[in-house]
Structure formats: C-alpha cells, structure tokens
C-alpha cells in the first residue's frame, strides 16, 4: 500500500479501539479490554471492560456488558453496565437493563425492566426527562 494512502487511512481513524463500521455485519462474541463502538449490524454477545457506544446506524441483537454504555442506535438484548447507561434521542432499547445511573433523552425509547444499582451519596445525580414505551 502506498505510504500516502496508508496515511490517509490512519488519519480517518480516531482511536485504536474496537470499531464495527456501518457497512459491516458481524456475529459472534465481541470481547475487549477497552472501548467498543458499533455502527454496523451485530448479533451475539458484547463484553467490554471499557465503554460501549452503539452509533445511530448501529443495529445490535445481543446482550451487552460494559462499564458505561451510550445507545444512539437500536439494541435488542439485555444491557448490564457498571456505571451509566445513556439512551440518546435516536436510541431504541428493547430488553432489561441494569445500571447505577440511567439517562434517557427525549425521543429515546426503552422497553423492558430496569434495575438500578445502589449509589453512594456523591454518585446520586438529577435524572433528565425521559420517555418510555
């Protein structure tokens, strides 16, 4: 690969973490010690020691375990996070969730049961407005 082309590719990559691009259909167990971002279609299981981000075009049929999770796409499966789960206005989650902090932005959809972990005093925050189906 010519050096210029290689540099061009490298310039487009933000950080060296696991990323599934929009044009990709992936199945299996995706496990990483760092962050995972899914913008494509995924089925199986997602386990991350870092954060998980489901992009606007992301379509995930899998349970997710992570430190924090941000959902801008669609997730069908249970989500278990240690700290915070953010469902953004374009996000749709169908499944049970377990988190310390849950935040659902206006327009975000959540269908399922939620379990909140116990929080220490300094971790308690004011929850934003949210809508559920």
């Amino acid at each position, binding site marked *: 690969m010519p050096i210029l082309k290689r540099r061009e590719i490298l310039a487009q*990559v933000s950080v060296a973490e696991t990323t599934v691009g929009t044009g*990709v259909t992936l199945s299996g167990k995706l496990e990483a010690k760092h962050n995972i971002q899914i913008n494509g279609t995924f089925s199986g299981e997602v386990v991350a020691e870092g954060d998980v981000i489901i992009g606007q075009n992301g379509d995930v049929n899998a349970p997710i375990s992570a430190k924090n999770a941000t959902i801008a796409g669609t997730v069908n499966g249970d989500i278990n996070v240690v700290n915070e789960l953010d469902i953004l206005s374009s996000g749709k989650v169908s499944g049970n969730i377990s988190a310390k902090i849950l935040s659902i932005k206006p327009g975000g959809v959540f269908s399922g049961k939620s379990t909140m972990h116990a929080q220490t005093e300094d971790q308690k925050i004011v929850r934003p407005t949210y809508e559920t189906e």
Partner: protein
Amino acid sequence: MNLYLFNPEANRGKAKKLKKKIICYLESLGIMGEFVELKKIGEATEITKEAIKDGMGTVVAVGGDGIVNEIIQEIAETDAQLGIIPIGETNLLASILGIDNWKIGCETLAKGMTTEIDLGIVSDRYFTSSVEVENELEQEKILGVIPFRKAKKYYPVSIAISSDSTKLKMQTNISSIMVSTIPIPLPADLDVFDALTDNKIHILIKSKPLANPRKKKQRKSGDELSQLEGNVISIKSKSSILVKADGEACGETPIDIGIAPKGLKVIVPKKEESENS
C-alpha cells in the same frame, strides 16, 4: 561476528552513496563484520539461511523493509538476531523500533539490547509490520491504466476472526484490509514494545457504508472503517483479491493470517537512548 546484507538498490539506488560511510562508521564503532553487497532479489534469504546453518549470531539488514522481509523468512524462530541499518525508501519496522536513521542503526548494533517481538504469518511467510488485502484495480488506477471512475470496486468478503476468548464472523463489502502486529494507529499511552509483544493481530477494514433506511436523502459518504483484534484471521472472497505482506505480493484470497508470538529477536536502542534521541 555480524553479517551485513547491503542492498545497493535501496531507496531507488541512493543507498550506493552511503556504502563507504556506513562501513567507516561500523569500523569506528569496532563492530565491522562480513559485508555482502546483494545482487538480486531473494539473495538475502539464501545467504541468511546458509549463515544461520554456520552459526552466525547476528544478521543485519542494510536496506529497507524489503530486505528485512527477506531476512526474517530464515531468521524467525531461531536463536539468531536481526539488526537494522535503515536506508530504504520505507523503513517501517525500523521506525517503529526507534531506529530513525542509518547512524542510529549502527550505534544500536554497538550499544543496543536484544528484544523479542511478535511476527505475523501469512501463507507460510512471516511479516513484521502489515499485510494488506486490497483491490488490484487501485494499483492500476494509480498507474493511470484505467479511468478513476471505473476503478472503484468493492469485494464481498467473509472474514472469521478468533482469539483466546472470542470468535467472530463478518460479512462486508471491502475495499481494503490491513492486518498489523501493532494497533493502527498506536494509542499515545501504549508502549510500542508492549504492542509488539501482545500476541495479537490488529485488523483495519475499509468497507462500503450501508444505506441508512431511516434517511431519505443520503449524502455520499466515504468508506467506513472497522478496527478489530484477534490471534487468527481467515479471509474468503468470491473473487480473488491480491494479498501483500510488508509491501511484497504473497498470494491471493482465501487466506489465513496468524501470529508467531515473540518470533523475532531484534536489536533495538536501549530505552533511555531512544527516549533521549
């Protein structure tokens, strides 16, 4: 004693001018050994094979990535070690290891230390930095053989990636795949030697974005990138795609790429020296 394999054609022949300077500098450092000027492609592999049989401890690539690639085919997974004096057009491995020019290369041989790094394996060949699976037409496009408009082509491929704990199957239309022994790009907080010994191959896939059914008007977007990692990657495609290891053609898909953990002993600058330079 060191065996130096000098490629006079490195960096489009500019290497010839450096020959005397390098020999003088090696003599001044007291590490001059057998100095062989290579005459044809593949000769470095043959000479290295014989040298290792004769018990040679260090084989030094005096050239670019091409000559390094030839030498590692025989030196990998043996007790012999590789030295690098980078004078090629591309010196990727040397640059990763902190050997930024030929003088540092010579000094590293005199005062450096030996470390063991992971090597990639593709089609029974070893590679140090990267394997590229890409559209042959891209090359023709660059050479101006076919018009740019017609050159853009994507290949439907299926990819299987496995590691100790994960197994993944992937389908996508790719324009290129780069498989490397270090993460691309290297995270700022990661030590390069940790990355070179993590027993993982890092995969960067450039693919065609899918149309978003939610958006009526779609802006033409560029290729999408996916980054994954594992120990073994298998790539299958309906039509065959050219595969290059360290810039040299080494076959076509279907192809399996694996890793030889700590498969190469290489002389690198001592840590404090590379940090100070």
